[in-house]
C-alpha cells in the first residue's frame, strides 16, 4: 500500500492522539496508579491516629526516649547542623507547634514547654496532592506513605507540607547513623523522608517505636475506626486540638490540652 508522507503523518498523529487521549481521560478521572486498595465509598476498617498528651510529656524535662527510639528503628541520621538536619519526630515549643492557642497569657504549664511534633498523616494531605511521581500517597489505613525508590527529590512535598514535617537528605546520611539497624533500610542522598507511623512495625502487630518507648505514656496510638480503641475514648472524653485546622488538611494527630 502506497502512502504519502503527509498521509502517514496524519494517521500517526491521530493514533497518538487517540492513545494519549485515552490515557489522559483515565488519569483525569482519578485512575492514577493504584493507591493501596482504594475503594471509594467503603468505610475504612482501619484509621491509624495518634493522641499526644503534652502535659505528660512536660513532666519529664529533657527526655528524648521517643526520638531515640525512632532514630534507632529507622536509621534516621543524627545531623547536628540545623540547616541539614533530618528528623522524623522532635520537640517544638508549644507556641510554635500550636500557635493559634498561644497568647501572652498562655497557661503556665505549657509556656515554652516541649510538644512532640511529627507527620500528621493528614486525611487531606497537600503533600500527596503535589507529588509529581506519586512517591507519596495516602494508604487505605490512613498512613501517608513514602516510596524512596520513586522520589525524584524535587522537594515539592516539603514546600506543600504546612507543618514542616518533611526532611530532605542534603547528602549521604550513612556517616551520621551511629548504629545501623538491619531491619530497616537507610535512605540515600536526594530523597525526602518523614515519619511513617512505623508502618513496618504495624505490619507485624507492634505499636510505633515512639509510643513503645515513652515511659510517661504521653503518646497514645490506635485505630480511630474502632469505637473501643483508646484513641477514640480519649477523643470523645477530652478536648483535643489539631495543628492548623483552618487549612483543611484533617490531621490524624491530636493534642490534648
Amino acid at each position, binding site marked *: 500500500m502506497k502512502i504519502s508522507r503527509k498521509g502517514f503523518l496524519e494517521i500517526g498523529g491521530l493514533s497518538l492522539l487517540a492513545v494519549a487521549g485515552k490515557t489522559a481521560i483515565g488519569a483525569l478521572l482519578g485512575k492514577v496508579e493504584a493507591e*493501596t486498595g482504594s475503594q471509594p465509598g467503603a468505610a475504612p476498617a482501619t484509621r491509624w491516629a495518634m493522641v499526644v498528651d503534652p502535659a505528660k510529656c512536660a513532666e519529664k524535662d529533657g527526655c528524648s526516649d521517643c526520638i531515640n527510639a525512632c532514630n534507632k528503628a529507622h536509621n534516621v541520621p543524627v545531623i547536628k547542623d540545623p540547616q541539614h538536619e533530618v528528623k522524623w519526630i522532635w520537640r517544638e515549643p508549644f507556641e510554635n507547634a500550636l500557635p493559634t492557642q498561644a497568647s501572652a497569657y498562655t497557661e503556665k504549664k505549657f509556656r515554652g514547654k516541649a510538644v512532640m511534633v511529627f507527620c500528621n498523616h493528614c486525611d487531606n494531605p497537600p503533600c500527596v496532592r503535589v507529588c509529581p511521581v506519586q512517591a507519596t500517597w495516602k494508604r487505605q489505613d490512613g498512613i501517608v506513605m513514602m*516510596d524512596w525508590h520513586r522520589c525524584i527529590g524535587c522537594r515539592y512535598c516539603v514546600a506543600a507540607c504546612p507543618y514542616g514535617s518533611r526532611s530532605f537528605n542534603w547528602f549521604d546520611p550513612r556517616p551520621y*547513623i*551511629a548504629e545501623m539497624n*538491619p531491619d530497616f*533500610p*537507610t*535512605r*540515600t542522598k536526594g530523597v525526602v523522608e518523614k515519619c511513617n507511623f512505623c508502618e513496618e512495625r504495624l505490619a507485624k502487630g507492634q505499636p510505633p517505636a515512639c509510643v513503645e518507648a515513652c515511659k510517661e505514656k504521653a503518646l497514645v496510638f490506635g485505630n480511630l475506626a474502632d469505637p473501643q480503641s483508646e484513641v477514640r475514648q480519649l477523643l470523645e472524653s477530652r478536648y483535643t486540638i489539631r495543628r492548623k485546622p483552618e487549612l483543611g488538611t484533617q490531621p490524624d494527630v491530636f493534642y490534648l490540652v
Partner: protein
Amino acid sequence: MRDRGVIYTGLLIFLGLMTFPVWHDLAAGTTSRGPQPILPKQEKQCVAPLAYMRTSHMNLLMDWRETAVRRDVHSYKAFNGKTYNMSLTGTCLTGCHTNKDEFCDRCHNYAGVSVQCWECHVDPKLARRSAP
C-alpha cells in the same frame, strides 16, 4: 612522509591503550574464569528457579519492591509453594546470601554493573560491624 616513524609509533601506543582491557583480562585469565560467586551452604533452592534468577533477578526484586512498598503486601508465594517475606535484606541477605561481597558483588563487578540498591538497603554484615 617524513614523520612516518612517529606516526606509526603513536598509532601502536594508541591501539595498545585502547585494547588494554582485552589483553589484560586475557593474560590474567579473569574472562575465562568467570565471576565465581560463592553459593550459600545451607539453602539449595532460591525463591525462584535458577535459570530465571540468572536472567531476571532484577525484575523479581523490582516486582517485590512495588508489591511490598506500594501495595503493602509482604508475603511471596514461591513457585515451589514456600512463602517468603519480600525483603532484600531480611530474606535474601539474612536467610541465604549472608556474604554480599562473595555473592552479589562477584557477578556485578564482573559484569561492570553498579547497582544503587546498597545506597539504601542495609548489608547485615555492615550493621553488625557498626554496632557499638
